[in-house]
């Protein structure tokens, strides 16, 4: 027999006649013996009937003659190209499609980044000679530099030295101004 928690989760679907036979049977049996769940059932029935009458009262005001006239007017009038374009863009970028677009973009970007690993000779992805690296330039790891290593020369883009090591250090960086 189902408990109160399970019944309350399925009671709406039970009232809608959308539960599988076994589940519907379990819900019925529980409702026969549980006063609190029966009260929940009656509340949902009151909600359904009240909501229906409120929504129907609103819909009863529809005037059908001007409605069809409006449809006919839209059919007759020529639409601007930007309205058509707007419809297409809205259709393309509506929320459900965007939900698929985000992982798709991530996959494409990752594929672009890793393509060099699979086709090193193709030089399609991000080229490794465009990358800069942060490296330690002494034996203690205290002085670090942002280096751009080209095929012919190495450029120091940025150099970090702690205050005390600057005083001790006798080496002068070849280029300390930031390149960008």
């Amino acid at each position, binding site marked *: 027999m189902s408990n109160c928690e399970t019944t309350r989760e399925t009671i709406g679907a039970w009232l809608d006649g959308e539960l599988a036979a076994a589940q519907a049977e379990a819900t019925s049996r529980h409702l026969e013996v549980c006063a609190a769940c029966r009260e929940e059932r009656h509340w949902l029935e009151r909600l359904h009937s009240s909501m229906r009458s409120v929504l129907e*009262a609103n819909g009863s005001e*529809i005037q059908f003659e001007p409605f069809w006239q409006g449809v006919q007017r839209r059919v007759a009038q020529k639409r601007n190209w930007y309205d058509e374009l707007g419809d297409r863009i809205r259709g393309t970028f509506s929320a459900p499609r965007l939900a698929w677009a985000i992982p798709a973009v991530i996959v494409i970007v990752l594929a672009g980044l890793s393509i060099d690993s699979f086709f090193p000779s193709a030089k399609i992805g991000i080229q490794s000679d465009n990358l800069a690296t942060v490296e330690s330039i002494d034996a203690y790891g205290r002085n670090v530099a942002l280096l751009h290593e080209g095929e012919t020369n190495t450029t120091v883009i940025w150099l970090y030295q702690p205050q005390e090591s600057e005083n001790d250090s006798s080496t002068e960086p070849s280029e300390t101004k930031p390149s960008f």
Partner: protein
Amino acid sequence: MVIVGLLRNPDDAMEVAQESFFRAYRKITSFQGQSSFYTWLYRIAINICIDHQRREKRSPLEFRESMDEVFEQQNEVARDPFSDVHDRELREKMLSAIDDLTPEHKAVIVLRTLEGMSYKDIGEILGCSEGTVMSRLHYARKKLQHKLSAFL
């Protein structure tokens, strides 16, 4: 009637309903008969409604004012004054509670309550599974219960 239930403002609903029929007329060649024509037409209308709700969020006050006009025009037979006050308050609270639902939750509640559609048909219209429809209905009803428990 479903569109009026979703948007509440009669002028907006009229615009959206007309646009729905117009788009169905333009795209009739894309209807392949995989679902019923009724479901296909509803899908167009509901999508336009949801887009419209996201674009133009009207204030609850505006909704209430437009609904008040509708109820005043109905010339209901005078009953017990207490009952009228209670009914009016219930209507306002109910409209406000429905308005606070997300467009997706509102769509399942209105399609089920007004049209009595099956979960399968609602799922086809909204492009989701029957399980999702069941779940959305459950949570929509829970939210309504939370807000209306003192009035029903």
